[in-house]
């Protein structure tokens, strides 16, 4: 454990959010950006949301969750079906999808979170496969492999979203909400309990933390964020299909987190912002016949990361150290002198 040099530490979350939300993201649609670019960025931000949601389970609580995409799928189908059959507004659907995700998160979590480590990962993997199987086979509900086409686009205050930039701002807004929620949760009693469980389950228990309860909470919140992402996805892409929610997606989202730094919010977002557009960049850069091998590059990047910077771009420990420093300053200024 190396001592961290305080001078080098900055609050990454704050800085990266500032950069993202003031400097970078809002202005993109205003120039002559093509729909193509906007679509890629919307995807990237969608994955940022998904990664932020997943981050709660393996990042904060330390449980390997391979079934995250199941909740994403549940959210997408909830949203699509509610739209098609009941024509509900997006603002009703988003919380409903989140609730449905949380419900399934609790239902899956309550019995399985007693498992530890690999066993839990296997169960979640099974869950994601199960979701795909149900989506594929329950024709009466999901139309199975035919997919669900013709989902109406959302409308906001009577205005139907058509342009790419409108969706872009919508997802940016959603990202803000999720980010707001996640940062607040991280910096609370709940977040501390999660971190404690991640660091040492037995010590956490002996500090009075009810393991099952906090694990299930983490799982439910993560699932609801995933489902929200799915709900947006269905209303944006306007077509969903069981194959979109295959196990591979879970691994991709997990990659974003590992790449960015497990447990750190800024790292998670950065990971998504780099890796998702990378796929498109590779589409341009790689020759036609090699295009399908682009995920090899992902694998290569991950191997390099494991070799050079195993804790990710913005490591968890650094972000905690920065937070501690912030607290120190706050307390120091509150008492009128440097506390330490």
């Amino acid at each position: 454990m190396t001592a961290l040099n305080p001078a080098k530490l900055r609050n990454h979350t704050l800085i990266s959010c500032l950069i993202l939300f003031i400097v970078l993201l809002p202005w993109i649609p205003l120039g002559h950006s093509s729909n193509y670019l906007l679509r890629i960025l919307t995807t990237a931000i969608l994955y940022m949301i998904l990664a932020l949601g997943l981050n709660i389970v393996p990042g904060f609580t330390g449980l390997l969750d391979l079934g995250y995409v199941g909740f994403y799928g549940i959210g997408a189908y909830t949203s699509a079906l509610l739209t098609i059959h009941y024509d509900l507004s997006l603002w009703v659907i988003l919380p409903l999808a989140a609730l449905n995700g949380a419900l399934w998160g609790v239902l899956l979590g309550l019995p399985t979170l007693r498992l530890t480590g690999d066993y839990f990962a296997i169960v979640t993997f099974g869950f994601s496969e199960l979701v795909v199987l149900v989506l594929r086979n329950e024709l009466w509900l999901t139309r199975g492999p035919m997919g669900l086409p013709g989902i109406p686009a959302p409308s906001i205050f009577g205005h139907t979203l058509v342009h790419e930039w409108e969706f872009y701002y919508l997802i940016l807004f959603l990202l803000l909400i999720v980010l707001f929620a996640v940062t607040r949760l991280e910096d609370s009693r709940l977040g501390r309990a999660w971190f404690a469980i991640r660091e040492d389950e037995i010590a956490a228990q002996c500090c009075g933390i009810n393991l099952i309860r906090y694990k299930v909470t983490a799982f439910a919140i993560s699932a609801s964020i995933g489902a929200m992402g799915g709900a947006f996805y269905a209303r944006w892409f306007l077509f969903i299909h069981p194959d979109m929610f295959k196990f591979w997606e879970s691994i991709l989202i997990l990659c974003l987190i590992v790449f960015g730094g497990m447990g750190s919010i800024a790292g998670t977002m950065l990971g998504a912002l780099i890796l998702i557009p990378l796929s498109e960049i590779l589409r341009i850069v790689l020759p036609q016949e090699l295009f399908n091998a682009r995920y090899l590059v992902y694998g290569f990047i991950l191997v390099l990361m494991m070799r050079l910077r195993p804790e990710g771009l913005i490591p968890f420990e650094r972000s905690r150290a920065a937070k501690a420093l912030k607290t120190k300053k706050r307390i120091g200024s509150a008492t009128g002198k440097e506390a330490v």
Partner: protein
Amino acid sequence: MDLLLKIKGLSKAFGGLTALQDINLQVESGDIVGIIGPNGAGKTTLFNCITSLYHPSEGEIQFQGIPITARKSKKKEALIRRLTMLFFFLGLCWVPLFWSVFLPQTDYPFEMFLVGLFILAIQVFLVIGLRKFEIWAWGLTLVFLLNDLIFAFWWLKYPHENMSLIGTEIPANFLGIPWSIAALPFSAYFLWQLLHKPVRRLFGFRVGPDAICRAGISRTFQNIRLFFNLSVLDNVKTGFHVRLKTGVLGALLRTRFQREEEILAEKEALNCLRFVGLEQKAFHMAGALAYGEQRRLEIARALASEPRLILLDEPAAGMNPKESAHMTELILKIRENGISVLIIEHDMKVMMNLADRIYVLDYGKLISEGSPEEIRSDPKVIEAYLGKAHAAC
């Protein structure tokens, strides 16, 4: 002096290996009680039994007169209770709701009656499994019974009406939806019971390491178990967990209550750190602390939950004489604050200075107890540590 911790006839066996055998031990409030014994004598196992990390095979542990023994059978009973509630929940709310949403065109059919009967059967089975009269369980079983009786009645009266409830005049929605709406508060109540702490007292004392901490026993570990990637302050704040109340909503909305709690926790955590002499390091990462400091941080974290009794597992292990003298002072200071201490220690010097009473464990059995002086001269103790020849002379 009132009795704080009382252990009666405690045994713990791992398969064929008996780690603890018929342990009787008492801690009075304000005492420092020591446990010594050679390696592998079962000292840490005893701590794990007290903090509910292990389930004792036999015997009872009482804390302030309340039994806190973790039992497998008790867990089973709790599971049966939960299952009962789950089925009530399903039966009361979701089956009719499901029916009326997915099959709105059909009348309340015979199958519904069968489903009700099935749930009722499980209910009765589970309620008998409880082996104890509990009014809510029996009451709701009665509700189910009544429900099925009504169905049976209608079915017998109108056998030709396609098994529907009241001829064909009243569709299922008419029954299903109000039924579900009426059932919702019940369901909410049961979910609340399943999830929420105060009502959970219905189950009696819920045993588990976290409940033990809540009850007022906290501990440190022989091999240091800190949250190494969190700051020192956050470690202690985690110790405050049981004294805070913020939940998910509070954290999201950052209510005034939550903010005040956080500030309080921070202040108290700094106090705790000052108490063990670590306030200079409050904003370092716990993993970056020196070994002795990590031990003290563990104690600070244990103190944060405001325990009545603190269990220290070799607090002075691996320390030099100066550090262990500091540790002795610290433990005396803890006692001055009205917290009783149960301590495992190998360093005899520390132990003789500290303990009011000492229990000696050897191969899972209590071989001696008494004041430090008595222990020092007890031949059985000398034998356990040094062998028979020494005890003779």
